[in-house]
């Protein structure tokens, strides 16, 4: 298992280097069209060939990875903050506040996530720029994905509030923000960090599903999800198997995350 973890770390490190150096590794911009060679086969100039509009697939994969793998952690951060707030408030105050927060958590957990996402996405205007669509997509993921994490944080905060050191801190006059800042937050840091890491692959997959259904990031901006739309042309997959590379990259990156997360779960 140690070897598998090493491979996972190497994959993620390589991915990070690749997305950081996308500008230098890509032969062209993600929206630059080579109109004389649409649907070209892989060559020295275009490692993965070109798409229907003559855009370099390798460049789009690099920039797509950059979009998905940079914004998913941001959405995860947002969701962790939300989960920390709702779960922390529920655990700290207890009683009716906890019941109301749990009801809200139950509501979000009861609605199948993808249904909720497409419902909220459908309310938003259609004529948004690619930049706005990418922001909206990941903001929605962050806004709607906090419930499961909040339940964990709530349980953690509740346990802490019952612990002896918190009673002692309270008896010594600590209360409110000071108690939260000095005792609650430092002890919930592990749980919050775990929820942050767990959310990243979940959001990458959710964006991929949305993108593949045409409800994600708008063209011409690429993301791992929007690149999967090329797979819909199923007849072309046998003669052009390199179209499967974005899916392979996605699976390898998420699997690497999962391998490292399993290790973290064992530790906790």
């Amino acid at each position, binding site marked *: 298992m140690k070897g598998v973890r090493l491979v996972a770390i190497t994959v993620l490190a390589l991915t990070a280097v690749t997305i950081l150096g996308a500008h230098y590794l890509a032969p062209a911009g993600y929206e630059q069209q080579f109109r004389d060679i649409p649907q070209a086969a892989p060559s020295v100039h275009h490692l993965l060939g070109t798409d229907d509009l003559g855009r370099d697939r390798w460049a789009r994969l690099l920039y797509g990875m950059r979009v998905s793998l940079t914004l998913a952690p941001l959405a995860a951060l947002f969701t962790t903050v939300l989960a920390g707030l709702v779960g922390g408030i529920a655990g700290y105050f207890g009683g009716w506040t906890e019941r109301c927060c749990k009801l809200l958590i139950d509501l979000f957990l*009861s609605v*199948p996530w993808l249904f909720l996402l497409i419902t909220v996405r459908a309310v938003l205007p*259609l004529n948004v720029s690619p930049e706005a669509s990418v922001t909206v997509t990941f903001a929605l993921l962050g806004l709607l994905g906090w419930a499961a994490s909040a339940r964990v944080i709530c349980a953690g905060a509740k346990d802490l509030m019952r612990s002896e050191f918190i009673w002692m801190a309270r008896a010594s006059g600590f209360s409110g923000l000071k108690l939260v800042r000095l005792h609650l937050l430092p002890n919930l840091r592990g749980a919050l960090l775990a929820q942050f890491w767990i959310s990243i692959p979940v959001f990458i997959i959710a964006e991929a599903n949305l993108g593949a259904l045409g409800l994600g990031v708008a063209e011409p901006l690429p993301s791992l999800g929007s690149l999967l739309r090329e797979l819909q042309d199923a007849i072309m997959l046998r003669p052009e198997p390199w179209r499967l590379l974005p899916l392979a990259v996605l699976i390898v990156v998420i699997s690497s995350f999962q391998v490292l997360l399993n290790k973290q779960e064992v530790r906790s």
Partner: protein
Amino acid sequence: MESGLLPSVTRWLDRMLRFWSWAVLRVVAVMLMASLAGAMLMRIAPGFSSDDQELNSGLSAQSIQAIRRAHLMDADIPHFYMRYVTSLVRGDLGTSRSLNQPVKELLRERLPVTLINLSFALAAGWLLGLALAIAAQLWDSRELGFLANGLSGTFISTPAAALAMVFLLLRWPPAFAAALLVFPKIYRYTQNLLQQSSDMPHVLTARAKGAGPWRVLAWHVAPVAFPQLIALVGVSISIGIGVLLPIEVVSDVAGVGQLAWHAAQARDLPLLVNLTMVVTFVTVCATLLSDAAQRGFSRSDA
């Protein structure tokens, strides 16, 4: 013995009554909140106050005024919400704007398709997940563990839409793709549960006394793990519904998922919100039933 039976039955009835009252209250509260969110979404959606009928040149000015007045009444959110909830309670799920058909009728056509696929996906996902977790527990083989973890790792990392596309290419049944996406959760949870249960002192004692692996699993590990596994049934239904949506869209299966996607594409909010409400209701009830079953098994064990 007889004198002790009546109070214990009364206590059991009292406990059950309290549990089910709270459960029903919770379902009602969740559904009320979901309907409020749904009504708000419909209300704030672009184009809510406009009506295609206003473009009908055959309508008189008075009719158009009447349509506008009706929309003005809906502009008041509490009023709109009350009307929405009342019609929901009456079983009226409204009419789809894009398909011009009652949502109830659309559901009657589509729901059975989704339910059949969901049942197959859940049955196959559970069977595969349980079989692999039990095999890994019984034989403790490195290769088997690697294979099972590799399989679950791969499918947990694959977007449902992408797997459905691959299945479409291979001409394999789409419900099997859903099963493969449900299985990793079942496998991982069951494996962790069996591992935790097999480390318990009474299991170690049974092993030390020479009980074989099958006997240990059947008599000592499974009874501890079973009630917690029941709780996963509700969660797996939610996962199954979630993965079926993109699979139905990609594989062109005429189920609820495809209908929801069509509603999202056509920005048919009444249809989309009502579909989400129905799916939420199914999920909440499934979770509630699995919670109740878990509770029942835990108590009977105790």
